[in-house]
């Protein structure tokens, strides 16, 4: 274990050791973040010229505010996660910026709200990075997260609390606050899956339970996951949120497949999915409608297929280069600022703009999965895989729905769509991914694994106690008492239970 060396190295000098690799990553991030801000600022100006034919009066304030927010996020990463991948934050900033410009262009009123959500989103990003300083810590809260996630999912079903908007009962109203708990539940459940599977993946993969010709894992190992998955799917169907349901399903199947390294789970997942899809197609009229519209929207172009047909008209009108920001008619598509924001982007920025969005998601997926590959601990590996899968699959489901590749299911486009819950949850997810990326970089020795703020504070406290004890002539803390006090040390690399399975 390297813990001792690292601690020794840090012990001597409270100043952080320099790391050229980390510095270069952060400088790359800084450059890219500034570029994302400049692109957003230019797009904002162009969109205003296109719609109102004037340079937006608040452009300087806007760019300053934007740069300020992004630089804050960057500085926090530089300070507490300096080894992390340098492209994640800029890519999210670019998507967020393009989305924000599009929302402003679609609806001024929503733009103000989205600006507030952006602020909160960055705050949550910063907060998450500061609070979660060791990715492994999360694994300890797996059961809390499991029940928390399940509770969040159930929340909209509670009478008086849940609200049905556009046919889906996925909203919760608490006083003036309206939010979609499902957005956070998916992260909680991803963490739970990662922690649970990291512990028991070998047991699950062992498949010692024989049922006829099938070899299945011991029921007690697989049960919690099945419960979590079934819970999510049932609730989602109950809430009529097909997109999230599909996302949970994919997340579950992908994580158990990666964890067990058994392709059988993937195949089983596909079969289960096909069965569930067929079942809901026969049982639920809204599912049938979705499928019918997917197969032939044209014959219903004035009623049920209106949204998708208008979306395709918009994309076609945009063509290769788009109509130009502010010069198309994306408002023709209902919910243009939400689920259909990709159609607005395709219309006004064309195939080129749409491809930029696709590439951004693909690059995020690449950075996320690279993090997963580099991680040496199963929990972090699975967590990075799960979080990346959420972003990649969610974007695929909604973009695919908008351009008629898959049946349309209402779900937000991460970072781009309007909506506080979605934006905040995605920044939270991004912070976790950056945290895992930083952890794996440290473990690989890209940079010295210096202590986190919390650990330094604990160390200082320990030292203070030692001094105090020394003054009083007592022996330095140790034995049983020291074990309790040094709880923070458990969080040091290599000390958490997840590490044992490496």
């Amino acid at each position, binding site marked *: 274990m390297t813990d001792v060396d690292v601690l020794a190295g840090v012990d001597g000098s409270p100043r952080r050791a320099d790391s050229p690799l980390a510095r270069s990553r952060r400088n790359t991030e800084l450059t890219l973040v500034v570029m994302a801000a400049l692109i957003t600022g230019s797009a904002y100006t162009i969109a205003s010229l296109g719609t109102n034919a004037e340079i937006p009066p608040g452009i300087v304030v806007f760019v300053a505010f934007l740069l300020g927010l992004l630089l804050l996020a960057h500085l926090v990463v530089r300070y507490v996660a300096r080894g992390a991948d340098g492209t994640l934050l800029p890519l999210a900033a670019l998507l967020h910026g393009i989305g924000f410009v599009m929302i402003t262009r679609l609806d001024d009123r929503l733009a103000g709200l989205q600006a507030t959500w952006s602020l909160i989103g960055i705050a949550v990003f910063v907060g998450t990075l500061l609070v979660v300083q060791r990715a492994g810590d999360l694994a300890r809260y797996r059961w809390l997260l499991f029940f928390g996630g399940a509770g969040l999912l159930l929340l909209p079903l509670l009478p008086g609390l849940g609200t049905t908007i556009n046919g889906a009962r996925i909203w919760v109203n608490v006083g003036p606050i309206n939010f979609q708990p499902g957005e956070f539940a998916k992260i909680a459940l991803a963490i739970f899956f990662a922690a649970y599977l990291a512990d028991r993946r070998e047991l699950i993969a062992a498949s010692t339970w024989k049922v006829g010709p099938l070899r299945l894992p011991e029921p007690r190992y697989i049960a919690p996951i099945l419960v979590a998955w079934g819970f999510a799917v049932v609730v989602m169907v109950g809430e009529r949120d097909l997109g999230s349901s599909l996302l949970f399903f994919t997340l579950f199947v992908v994580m158990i497949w990666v964890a067990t390294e058994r392709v059988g789970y993937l195949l089983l997942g596909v079969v289960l999915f096909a069965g569930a899809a067929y079942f809901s197609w026969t049982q639920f009229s809204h599912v049938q409608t979705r499928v019918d519209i997917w197969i032939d929207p044209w014959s219903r172009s004035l009623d049920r297929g209106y949204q998708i047909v208008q979306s395709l008209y918009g994309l076609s009108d945009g063509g290769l280069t788009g109509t130009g920001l502010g010069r198309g008619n994306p408002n023709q598509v209902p919910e243009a600022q939400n689920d259909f924001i990709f159609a607005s982007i*395709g219309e006004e920025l064309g195939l080129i703009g749409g491809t930029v969005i696709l590439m951004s998601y693909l690059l995020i997926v690449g950075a996320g999965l690279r993090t997963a590959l580099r991680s040496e601990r199963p929990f972090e590996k699975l967590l990075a895989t799960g979080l990346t899968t959420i972003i990649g699959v969610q974007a*695929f489901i909604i973009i695919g729905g908008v351009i008629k590749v898959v049946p349309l299911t209402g779900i937000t486009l991460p970072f781009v769509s309007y909506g506080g819950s979605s934006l905040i949850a995605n920044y939270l997810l991004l912070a976790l991914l950056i945290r895992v990326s930083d952890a794996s970089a440290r473990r690989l020795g890209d940079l010295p694994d210096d202590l986190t703020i919390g650990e330094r504070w604990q160390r200082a406290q320990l030292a203070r106690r030692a001094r105090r004890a020394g003054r009083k002539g007592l022996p330095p803390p140790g034995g049983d008492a020291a074990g309790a006090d040094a709880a923070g040390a458990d969080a040091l690399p290599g000390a958490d239970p997840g590490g044992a399975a490496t």
Partner: protein
Amino acid sequence: MNRQIRQLAAGLILCYVALFVALNFWQVGRKEELDARFDNTRAVLREFNKPRGPIVTADGVVVAHSLANPPDSRFDYRREYPSGDLLSNVTGYYTLSFGATQVERQHGDVLTGTTAAQQVRSLGDLLGGDVDSSGSVQLTLRHDAQNAARFFLGGREGSVVVVEVETGAIVAMWSNPSYDPNTFVNQDFEVAREVISELQEADGNPLLANAYQERYMPGSTFKMITTGIGLETGALTLASQFDRVREWVPPQTDDPIQNYRGSQCGGDLAEVFRRSCNIPFAQTAVALGPAAMIEGTRNWGLDEELPIDLPRPAGSTFGNTSDLDQNLPLLAIRGFGQNEDQMVPLHMALVGGAIANGGRMMKPYAVAATFDHGGRVLDQTRPEVWKTPLSPQNASIISDLMVGVAQSGTASCCIGLNGGVPVAAKTGTADLGLGGGVDLVHAWIVAFAPADAPKYAVAVVLTDLESTPAEAATGGRLAGPVAKGVLDFLLTGDGAG
């Protein structure tokens, strides 16, 4: 686990490749098909949210313009046509759901400011704070002259066309019935469709600019062309003499040709032209033969589309000529403008214009110039010669013949201009030959004035008139006053100067 993660990466890449392919499919591959679908209003929507420049007459009256809608309307602008039906056949219409016609269509790019020149200029204007790049179109038509044309036609079905003889610029071009575009252009699809389909089924085809998009049997006005061909080929001279007869049997038939209402008619060219005898021109056509007549009519621009700067012009025709040498009686009849001869009213005005203009037939045009938003000229129409069917000498000869018609011939009743302005004219009464007690006729007149220094040529046709023996509908009597009214207005009346 790394193998699975790599496989997962590959799978996600495949998913995104599929998205990219689909995006190409919709945005590039099937673009044209989607853009053309009936319920796809994107292009129109985009246009209706942009200012669209005005169409202005030569005398400065705005006849089509865009007005800003109140805030929160579905579209930022609406299109209005302040003079209603008066110039709709020239401006055309610009609708939300049914596209555009005429100038609105032909010069849509100028009006919306999307020509290359406007785009480049507006880039500069943008920096100066002017972001509206919509251009404007100035017509050659005069609002007052158009009004006069409508007034003198007096609600009867027909067309009045006035052209400037030296340039071919159209000064007035009125057809009745017309339509008011304001009734449907800003309406929703359903309402607009109902109004338009009503107009399509209405009598007299109001949506069609009959003055240049329809053709009618010309009757005796065609004798200008037959005379012109005869003079050019030498088959006719001022000295030509024709027997005074009531009827004449052309070759290949026993069925005689008669003069108008069986009258006895003959004499020298001036005489037969003045009285508009039929038989001399039938004989001239037969004497010239099919080949010379066909070639001659081609020289006058028949059997080709009018080269006007508006969409979908009609073309005049000498009829089916495939075996005319086997059908000399038809050739004879066509010599005086019956049978399959069909002339576009505008073309008839150009025929008068060519005679007035020393034999040069100008290309007709309705748009004088286009301007960008700053008022700078984008394009200006330059007069061009279309056909030269006559030598100046022969043009002058026919001009004199037509002065005779106006002074003491078939038009003498009704074409004498105020202030003694000399005028030249040729009448025509095309018998649609429905038989019975009532004949349907087109009454024509082609005139130009002043005859000694021609400025305007005018063609008038009143269509589908009922003609009875008691009250004969003739070009001179019915169309003559219309031409006189318009010419008086332009030369000595309120529209002079």
